[in-house]
């Protein structure tokens, strides 16, 4: 178990390092920040001063090393716009994003898992077909379309919810539901197939043959096994919630990390973009690490196997 945990943590750290590197490479390749921030008409001395100031005149490799060294010290650079620490600029937006993503996550877990289980238990019935039709619709519609349609219905037509902004708690409902519906659709589908797979296993027949009633067979024997593959997709969902917030926050003018990213990209505010990319990568890695560790708790076969396996 100890080796298992250790190997998962090591793997997570390596992934984070790769993400940090990737963030650097991609941002340096996509254009010169001096030109964009100072504008095309600035005098050449101004460009030079700006580049010297931000270390952009150094060879790329040196820039990379000093960037990496700074990150290890916890220094993620300053916003090129207003000179404040980029980490602070991002972190003050994080709670706002969590205000959307945490309810969205709860929504998609509760609805998605319940729907998936019901669909599997009523396989090929109208319940199953209805749930799966809704699910396919949910995850094939892009989030901006879903968001706009919901806004159109509840804000424009019914006028029961605000279409954008962040003044009251009602403002969180539409963006959360948009993200939650899409996530629920995906989780329902995965839960259903995981359940169907498990319900076909011989140990389910054993549990019935033992004299357990069907409800207990499902709760005590099917669900713990179906949870194992479902966890994988849940980890993925948690990781992608922050990334998904980029689109949804823009639609609903929600001042979270997602909208900050859109602004920072447009402004070529490298340090801020870097911090957000690393943050998104870090959530994904963390979510997957938690999932890996949870596997170990749920599945005794993993707990006892060697990490090399």
């Amino acid at each position, binding site marked *: 178990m100890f080796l298992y945990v250790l190997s998962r943590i090591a793997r997570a750290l390596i992934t984070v390092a790769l993400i940090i590197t990737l963030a650097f490479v991609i941002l340096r390749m996509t254009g010169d920040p001096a030109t964009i921030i100072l504008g095309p008409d600035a005098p050449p001395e101004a460009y030079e001063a700006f580049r010297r100031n931000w270390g952009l005149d150094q060879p790329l490799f040196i820039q990379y090393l000093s960037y990496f060294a700074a990150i290890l010290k916890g220094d993620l650079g300053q916003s090129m716009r207003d000179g404040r620490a980029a980490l602070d600029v991002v972190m003050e937006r994080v709670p706002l994003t969590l205000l959307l993503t945490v309810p969205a996550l709860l929504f998609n877990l509760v609805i998605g898992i319940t729907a998936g289980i019901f669909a599997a238990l009523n396989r090929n019935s109208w319940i199953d077909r209805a749930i799966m039709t809704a699910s396919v619709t949910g995850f094939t519609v892009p989030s901006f379309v879903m968001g706009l349609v919901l806004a159109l219905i509840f804000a424009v037509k019914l006028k029961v919810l605000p279409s954008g902004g962040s003044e009251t708690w009602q403002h969180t409902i539409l963006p959360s539901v948009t993200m939650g519906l899409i996530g629920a659709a995906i989780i329902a589908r995965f839960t259903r197939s995981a359940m169907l797979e498990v319900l076909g296993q011989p140990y389910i*027949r054993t549990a019935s043959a*033992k004299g357990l009633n069907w409800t207990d067979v499902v709760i005590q024997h099917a669900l713990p096994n179906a949870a194992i593959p479902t966890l994988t997709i849940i980890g993925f969902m948690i990781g992608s919630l922050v990334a998904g917030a980029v689109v949804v926050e823009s639609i609903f003018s929600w001042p979270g990390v997602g909208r900050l990213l859109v602004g920072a990209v447009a402004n070529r505010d490298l340090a801020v973009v870097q911090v957000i990319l690393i943050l998104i990568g870090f959530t994904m890695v963390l979510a997957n690490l938690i999932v890996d560790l949870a596997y170990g708790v749920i599945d005794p076969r993993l707990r006892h196997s060697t990490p090399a396996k």
Partner: protein
Amino acid sequence: MTHSGKQTIFKPKQQDFLIDVRGLTVDFDIGNHYVRALHGVDLSIRRGETLGVVGESGCGKSITWLAVLGLLGGGAKVSGSARFDGQELVGLTPRQLTAFRGGRIALIFQDPASALNPVHRIGRQIAEALRLHRGLTGKAAKEEARRLLDRVGISNAAQRLNEYPHELSGGMNQRVMIAMALAGEPDLLIADEPTTALDATIQAQILDLLRDLQAETHMAMALISHDLGVIADMADRVSVMYAGRVIEEASAEALFERPAHPYTRGLIGALPDIDGPRHRLEAIPGAVPAPSALPPGCAFSDRCSHVETICHKGPPILGLVGGEDDHSAACVRLDAIEDQELNLASQPSKLVHQRAGLQEGVEA
């Protein structure tokens, strides 16, 4: 031959059968229509008796018992009758059936590793059966589970209770399954290919264990197998199934010495001889027809070397084999083929030799 030449319809004597299955049919819903998998199966087992159920894969030998206990799921339509100790089981609600499942009627399955839940400890899985059928919980259940593991020959029982199925070998897991089956103190144990997934020495040990337990508890047993050696070794009576029907039924001795149905003759003839001269193995030509594509009349007619036009008239019913009152077969040409030499004289001893070889292997 002394008998009249007319088929006598086989009627079971009204003895105290523990379980008496009559005319059991199963139809599977495959979307737009039903496919019949069992075409009226008749089987019965007396108290303390072992009935061997033999047949190729897909002949319905497992489905029969799953149907009796309502374990086939919603896609299967079961009709006919299965009286267990006077109580009709066909038509009971799932909730009523749970009282029989794992209690008075226990099952063990072919692949013990996948028949046990991988995420629960052995102890918990046995304790579950103890709670359901004997109302034991907590410490009492744990102690009884330990005793059962001990009884089925698992050393270190107390420690094994806390282990998971993947930590045990196949043979050990089958012992756990047997312990779990014993938890309900069953009157009838249905053993569905209990040794097929195990290697030969373990096979012999598990069969010995089953035999011992049966002697001790006087439970009846339905031993489902396609291994004639296992059947010859264990069964008092044998039912041979083919394509969803019982086609021959007799005492084990009579069946192996005087198989009547061409299919049974073929099965026994196909056994390799362990110490006779080497010769090419006899095989039954062709394959079992799919349930959706049965020939009219006798389902075996396509593969039978004794086939005549009469065989296609309708499915034959079980009739007494001439001169015997506890041996029946479903073949309209019994009289005609009975006299044909099949040179089976050495067969029963051949089987006994094979088993003996296995047992010696265990002790060696």
